[in-house]
C-alpha cells in the first residue's frame, strides 16, 4: 500500500512527451513499476496493464488546460493509485478516463460537424494527435507489440509497405503506423490504403480518411509515393481479413499484382511486413454470408463473442503481437517500363509473398503463447 523505495535504479520514463507530464503522474507510474519484485522482464500482466492505463491518462493530460489537469489530479488523489490490487485504483482510473473523454467531446463534436483543417488527401493532423495516446495504449499495453527491422524503412523518401492482413477490422494497419511512428528514428507517418468500399459507410470512411487512410486506388497510391510518403497496402484484401480461424496465417492470394506495378512505376522499394498476433483478436469461426449480403458488407463474422454479446464482442482480444519489417526489395533497377511486364510483376509479387509467409512462420515458431 505504501510507497516502497525503488530497488535499483528506476527505469527511465518513456521518451517524447514525458517532459510535459505533471510530476505526480510520473512518480505514480514509477512507483507502480518499482514495486518490490518487479523487474522489466518479469512484469505481471496486471502491473503492466495498470502502468499502461496510467500512461494513457497522463498523455491525455498533455492536451488539457490547467483547470482540467487539476481536476484529473484531484480524482487520482482521491483513490489509491499506487496499488493496482486495490479496487479503488480501477475506479479512479475509470473516473479519470471518463472525465477526459467528456472534456474532449467538444473536440469530437467539432470533428463531427466537419469544420477542421485537412491536408490534400483528407488527413486531419489534430485528430491524429488526439488519437495517438489511445493507439499507443493499444500498441504498448493491450497488444504489447514487439517490432524488429524498422531500420529497413528509409529515413526519407518513398517506400511501399506490403503486409499480411487479418483480424476482421483493420487494426493491423493502425498498429503498423503506430509502430513506425514509435520505433523509427524519424517517426514517419504511414498512409494506409483501405478498401474503397469503406468510403460508402457513414462515419467509417470519414474517420479512416481523417486518420490518414486513403482509398486503395492505383492513382492514389502512385500520387502518394511520388510525394515521397510511406504507403502501406494489404494485397490479400478482403480475402485476408475475412479468413476463417482455421486458415489463420496462411496468406491468401495476392491478386493481380497491382501494388507491384505501383511500386515499379514510382521506383519505390517494397518492404514486406509480417504481422503476427492479429489473426486471433477476433477468432472468426464462420461467415454468415446471407447476413453479409443483407447488410451490404463483404462478410459477416461469427466469433465466440460477436454477435452474441453485441458491442462488447467488438472489443479485440489482447493477444501478443509482433511486427517484422523484412529486407526491402528494390524496384528501381527494373525501370518503370517493366510496370506492364507481367513476368516481372508476378515474379516480384511471389517474392514478396514468400518473404512475408516465411517471416510469419518463423515468428509463429518463436511465439511462446498467444496472449
Amino acid at each position: 500500500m505504501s510507497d516502497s523505495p525503488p530497488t535499483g535504479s528506476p527505469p527511465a520514463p518513456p521518451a517524447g512527451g514525458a517532459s510535459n507530464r505533471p510530476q505526480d503522474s510520473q512518480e505514480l507510474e514509477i512507483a507502480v513499476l518499482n514495486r518490490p519484485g518487479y523487474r522489466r522482464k518479469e512484469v505481471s500482466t496486471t502491473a503492466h496493464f495498470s502502468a499502461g492505463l496510467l500512461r494513457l491518462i497522463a498523455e491525455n493530460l498533455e492536451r488539457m488546460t490547467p483547470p482540467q489537469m487539476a481536476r484529473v489530479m484531484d480524482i487520482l488523489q482521491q483513490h489509491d493509485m499506487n496499488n493496482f490490487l486495490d479496487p479503488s485504483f480501477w475506479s479512479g482510473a475509470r473516473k479519470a478516463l471518463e472525465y477526459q473523454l467528456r472534456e474532449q467531446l467538444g473536440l469530437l463534436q467539432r470533428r463531427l460537424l466537419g469544420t477542421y483543417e485537412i491536408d490534400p488527401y483528407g488527413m486531419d493532423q489534430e485528430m491524429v494527435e488526439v488519437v495517438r495516446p489511445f493507439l499507443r495504449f493499444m500498441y504498448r499495453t493491450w497488444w504489447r507489440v514487439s517490432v524488429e527491422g524498422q531500420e529497413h524503412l528509409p529515413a526519407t523518401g518513398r517506400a511501399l509497405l506490403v503486409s499480411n492482413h487479418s483480424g476482421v477490422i483493420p487494426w493491423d494497419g493502425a498498429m503498423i503506423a503506430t509502430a513506425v511512428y514509435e520505433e523509427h528514428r524519424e517517426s514517419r507517418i504511414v498512409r494506409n490504403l483501405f478498401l474503397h468500399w469503406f468510403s460508402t459507410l457513414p462515419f467509417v470512411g470519414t474517420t479512416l480518411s481523417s486518420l490518414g487512410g486513403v482509398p486503395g486506388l492505383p492513382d492514389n497510391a502512385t500520387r502518394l509515393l511520388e510525394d515521397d510518403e510511406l504507403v502501406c497496402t494489404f494485397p490479400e484484401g478482403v480475402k485476408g481479413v475475412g479468413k476463417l480461424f482455421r486458415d489463420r496465417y496462411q496468406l491468401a492470394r495476392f491478386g493481380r499484382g497491382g501494388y507491384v506495378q505501383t511500386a515499379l512505376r514510382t521506383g519505390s522499394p517494397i518492404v514486406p511486413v509480417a504481422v503476427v498476433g492479429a489473426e486471433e483478436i477476433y477468432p472468426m469461426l464462420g461467415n454468415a454470408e446471407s447476413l453479409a449480403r443483407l447488410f451490404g458488407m463483404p462478410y459477416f463474422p461469427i466469433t465466440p463473442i460477436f454477435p452474441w454479446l453485441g458491442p462488447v464482442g467488438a472489443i479485440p482480444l489482447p493477444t501478443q503481437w509482433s511486427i517484422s519489417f523484412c529486407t526491402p526489395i528494390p524496384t528501381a533497377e527494373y525501370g518503370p517500363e517493366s510496370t506492364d511486364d507481367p513476368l516481372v510483376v508476378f515474379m516480384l509479387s511471389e517474392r514478396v509473398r514468400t518473404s512475408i509467409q516465411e517471416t510469419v512462420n518463423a515468428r509463429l515458431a518463436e511465439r511462446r503463447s498467444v496472449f
Partner: protein
Amino acid sequence: MKTILITGMDSLTGIYVAHALNAAAPSARLVGLGRGAADTLVEHVEMLSTPRSGYEFADLLKKERVNVVIHLDIAGEYQPVLNREQALQQNILGGMTLLGACVTAGVQRVVVQSSTLVYGASPSVPLFASEQQPLTRSRPSGLLYDYVEIETFIANFRNRHPSTDIVVLRCAGLVGAGVWSPLSHYLTQPLPLTLVGFQPRVQVLHIEDAAVAFALAATKEPVSQVFNVAAERVVTLSRAIALAGRQPAQVPEFFFDAARRLLPGRESMTVWHQDRDFLKYSCVADIQRARRELGWSPQHGIEDALHETAAYAPKGKRLQEKTQRRVI
C-alpha cells in the same frame, strides 16, 4: 489582328474574361454575344446581335473574321434555370450548333467551359482526378447531364474535324464577390443540406483565376485539349459551408429525398441539391496540366474566395441572381 468572340457576355464570367483578355492580348479585337440588352458592358468589347440560326451564326463568324470563340453561354451556370427543357436545348443543341458554325466558318480555336464535376463522385474516383480520368458513368442530372453530353459530343467531333482546335476547360465551382454559380448558390443558402457521417472534400475556383485561364487557353499554344482548372487547396464540405457564413443542416441519408422536397426554390435546383453522390464522395481535380502547359496558376486561395462570396451574401439573404452590372 486576332478577333476573339465571347458568348455569354451577360454573365459575370464573360465580363471578367473580357477584362483578362484586355490584359493578356491587348492587340486583339473583342466581340461579344449576349442574351440581354446589347449595350456595351465592358470597354473594348463590341456587342453583336444574336444570330437566329446556325447558318446566320456561321455568316456572322465569317463576316467578323473571328479567329477564336470562347463559349461561356451555359444555362444554369451563371443564373438559376427555370425551364429545364429550354436549358437543355440551349446547352446541348446550342453547343452543337456553335461548334458546327465554327467549323463551317473556319474558326481556328474554340474554348468551351465545362465543369470538374463531370468526373462524378464515387468511391472509385481517385482523390485527384487527372484529365485522363473517364467521365462519370452514373446518370447525371440537370446541368451536369448537359456538361457530360457536350463533352462526349466534343470528344467525337474532334476526331472528325481536326483542323479546329477545341479546348475544354473543366472549371471547379465558381466563387468570388457576387458570383452566382451552382456551388455558390448551394453554399450560401440558409441551410445547406449535408449527409450525416460524410465529409467530402470540395474545390472552388475564383472567377478572376477562371478568367485568366480562359484568356491563356484562347491565346497560348497548348498541346493538350482538356484542362482542369481549380484553386490549389481543398477543404471539407462543412468547412466550406462555414467559410460561406452558413450552418449545414445534417440529415441522415435515408431522409435525404424527403428533405430535398421540403427545400424552397426547388425549381432552380442545382446538381448540389439533387445529386447526393457529391454530398458523400469527393470530386477533386488535379491542376498540374494547366500549370505546366498554360503557365496558369491560381492566385486566390479557397478561404479568401469563400469569404468574398460570404460578404456578398449576408446571413438570411439569398445570393442575388442578377448581380449589378459592373463596368470594370
